[in-house]
């Protein structure tokens, strides 16, 4: 880890000013990802601006406006918040499925959105990686990739986005608020993560120097009937190999509204819009759920060792929507 300057910010304007246009400076939130990457040498900032104490630690809910989450709200506080549990249960479940109690106490919402992939090539400086060193190659394509992406990847990078929380946020049409020296801005989560293409090192659409200040989830009654499920290689404290956030509104056996998002299958949390389109207005049946999953997964491009993710996600879609349908019938 190289030596670095450390400054603690006390307000948003001050934080943005402290970071300035310095490409070697980083905002420090909970540090659970950044400090780890600094230890492994993937990140080598010359300056840290500590934003953990900024007054962005509130969660507010109104029926009309939905949920506003401050960027420095910890994962723990977000998951435990009564309004989140009541109106967006999948978000609580997603957050609780991630990491550990210790890490959730430290990690912040803003930092969670900006966390980097856990691909073993990305985190090992001795190996090539297009995301870390553009143009150096992606050894995962020919190498170890049994937990790599099947959707939205490219030959240049097949890494997945590791967040559970962001999967639920994606399903609920989250909008990111940020602050820059030129003033505030907003980005829908759907546009926040950039397509991989041949530039896997460019990960988000945030302007340089921007500080995430919060996330807004529009009011969505369907979100109250939502769930998150995560499959992983041990029962807890592991990244997903496939996960799903789903919300479903069924009336008289017909799907009125559905939200579906996948985790651990793409470079970003993956909103399954093709599946949603296929389902909306149609029957809430296992056949329809499977057909919708197939519609979404038609775009999947598998490698020799990650093909299982296609049936995995298909099965998760069917199981999850079946559960939600049965729940609605009770």
């Amino acid at each position, binding site marked *: *880890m190289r*030596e*670095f*300057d*450390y*400054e*603690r910010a*006390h307000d948003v304007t001050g934080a943005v000013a402290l970071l300035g246009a310095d490409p070697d400076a980083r905002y*420090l939130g*909970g*540090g*659970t990802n950044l*400090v*780890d990457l*600094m*230890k*492994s040498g993937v990140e080598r900032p010359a300056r*840290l601006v*500590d934003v*953990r104490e900024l007054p962005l630690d509130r969660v507010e809910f109104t029926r009309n406006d939905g949920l506003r989450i401050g960027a420095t709200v910890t994962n*723990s506080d977000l*998951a*435990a918040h*009564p309004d989140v*549990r*009541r109106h967006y*249960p999948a978000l*609580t*479940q997603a957050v*609780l*499925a991630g*990491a*550990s*109690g*210790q*890490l959730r*106490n*430290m990690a912040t919402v803003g930092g969670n959105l900006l966390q980097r992939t856990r691909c073993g090539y990305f985190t090992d400086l001795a190996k090539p990686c297009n995301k870390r060193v553009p143009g150096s190659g992606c050894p995962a394509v020919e190498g170890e990739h049994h937990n790599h992406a099947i959707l939205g990847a490219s030959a240049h990078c097949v890494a997945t986005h590791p967040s559970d929380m962001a999967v639920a946020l994606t399903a609920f049409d989250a909008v990111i608020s940020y602050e820059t020296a030129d003033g505030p801005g907003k980005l829908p989560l759907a546009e926040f993560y950039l397509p991989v293409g041949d530039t896997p090192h460019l990960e988000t659409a945030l302007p340089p120097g921007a500080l995430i200040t919060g996330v807004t989830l529009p009011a969505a009654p369907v979100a109250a009937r939502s769930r998150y499920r*995560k499959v992983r290689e041990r*029962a*807890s*404290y592991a990244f997903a190999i496939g996960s799903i956030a789903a919300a479903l509104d069924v009336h008289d056996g017909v799907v009125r509204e559905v939200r579906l998002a996948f985790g651990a299958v793409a470079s970003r949390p993956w909103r399954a819009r093709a599946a949603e389109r296929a389902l909306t207005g149609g029957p809430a049946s296992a056949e329809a759920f499977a057909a919708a999953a197939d519609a979404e997964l038609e775009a999947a491009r598998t490698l020799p060792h990650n093909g299982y993710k296609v049936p995995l996600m298909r099965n998760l879609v069917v199981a999850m929507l079946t559960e939600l349908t049965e729940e609605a019938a009770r």
Partner: protein
Amino acid sequence: MAPTTSSATTSTSSTITLHVNGEKYTLPVDHRTTLLDALRERLDLTGTKKGCDQGQCGACTVLLDGRRAVSCLQLAVAAEGREITTIEGVADGERLHPVQQAFLDLDGYQCGYCTPGQICSALAVIEEHAAGWPSAVTADVRPEAGVPQLTPEEIRERMSGNLCRCGAYVSIVQAVARAAQSSDTRSSDTRSSETKEAAA
């Protein structure tokens, strides 16, 4: 006050004050120093263990402002101003905390290296449960569903951020369950003795 304003400060180091187990320690730190290394290398509080230095094992768990955290990913300079509790601050003098006593009595450890982290985590698990926090195995997370019982399954999930390679999990879970029960008992004892005092 931002540490950078301190007189003994260079651009890459600061003199900071850490509040650990009720004591104040003022020390210069390289900004790269983690809280874990500050505790172990600078304050000689070696009870907090370094198992992976990457937030992947939980051996370095401490309480920060009463909440559990992995000290290996916490920069010391960023911990200034926060209340830090380490394993050395858990017992009441010679008297073991009920969680420590349960680990001892039920053999909730083997090599002992993950133990301080397990114990600090267990303290927080009991608090988090008492505060009504759900977990990933809580069937219904909606507040209307109420607080889940602290079953072995709930304890296992909540303790999963603390790896134990000796495989002492079974007895650790028993120890946490026993300590959680005794903390229930203790708080009701406290209430009843307060009542007695009030009556007297």
